[in-house]
């Protein structure tokens, strides 16, 4: 029995010995780092909520290969983005450019903010005026008596 346990222990404990070191992703570390920075900002069109850097889709792998080639060719980051946009459109950029078709996209939140602030100011002013009006109103003698009677009733209880 002990021998069996010892054998099994030896078998299982030796398993990590067969694990290899992770293979380097690419020969050139600098290229790979730039690739990651660029690809992080690009959308994978096959799986649209993933970036090109994080996607395992076939197309993403091909596009990363393309970007790698462009980097090695000495292209600038904006050249590479231009390469992608000319083929796949602005949609591939996670940070869309500001142009007439995207004005609403970029300005919309600010527009909403401004209209919210305006609505708030209008509302507060109206309420202030209503409060001020109510405060400036004097009670007639009849009303004063009525109020006193009501307060009396309250204290008697």
């Amino acid at each position, binding site marked *: 029995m002990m021998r069996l346990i010892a054998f099994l222990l030896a078998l299982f404990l030796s398993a990590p010995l067969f694990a290899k070191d992770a293979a380097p992703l690419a020969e050139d570390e600098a290229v790979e780092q730039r690739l990651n920075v660029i690809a992080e900002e690009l959308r994978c069109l*096959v799986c649209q909520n993933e970036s090109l850097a994080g996607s395992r889709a076939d197309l993403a792998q091909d596009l990363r290969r393309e970007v790698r080639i462009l980097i090695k060719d000495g292209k600038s980051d904006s050249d590479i983005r231009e390469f992608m946009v*000319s*083929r*796949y459109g602005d*949609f591939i950029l996670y940070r869309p450019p500001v142009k007439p078709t995207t004005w609403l996209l970029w300005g919309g939140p600010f527009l909403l903010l401004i209209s919210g602030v305006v609505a708030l100011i209008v509302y507060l002013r109206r309420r202030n005026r209503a409060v001020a009006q109510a405060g400036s109103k004097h009670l007639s003698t009849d009303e004063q008596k009525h109020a006193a009677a009501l307060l009396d009733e309250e204290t008697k209880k």
Partner: protein
Amino acid sequence: MMRFLLPLAAFLVLVGFLAVGLNLNPREVPSPLVGKPAPAFDLPQLAAPDKRFATKDMQGKVWLLNVWASWCVSCRQEHPLLVELGKAGIVPIVGLNYKDQRADGLGWLRQHGDPYVLSAFDLDGRVGIDYGVYGVPETYVIDKAGIIRYKQIGPVTPESLEQKILPLVKELDK
């Protein structure tokens, strides 16, 4: 009155945006290539590895470029339509066999029919990248001057064929 009208108006605007937005298909990304010259390429042919096909061979013709692959499931859906279209001889269809194995591609054509004048063999998918291919099948209508006039993303359907592709081909052929 304004108390009710304003929120109602805001609500209607929101409904309008959602109605349009939710009816759009996020898979259909408008191609920036429509209206631009079709990227030139020169590739070996699928059926004859020693022969080549170049986009300039089609100059002066209205033609369809159909991106397909044997591993592509929705290609099977559109294929009967293309076979029919190929038989009718209205417009030449050039296939772009995208990231496929030669034997698989040829076998697929034998099994499902071959509507193509020829298929170009894009093994590493680089021509596909130049055409902005991201979801096979895709079909491009290219005019006599080599300008892309229309891009169909996903399988060609009877509707898209009748309403978009064929009328466009007819008009461009004039």
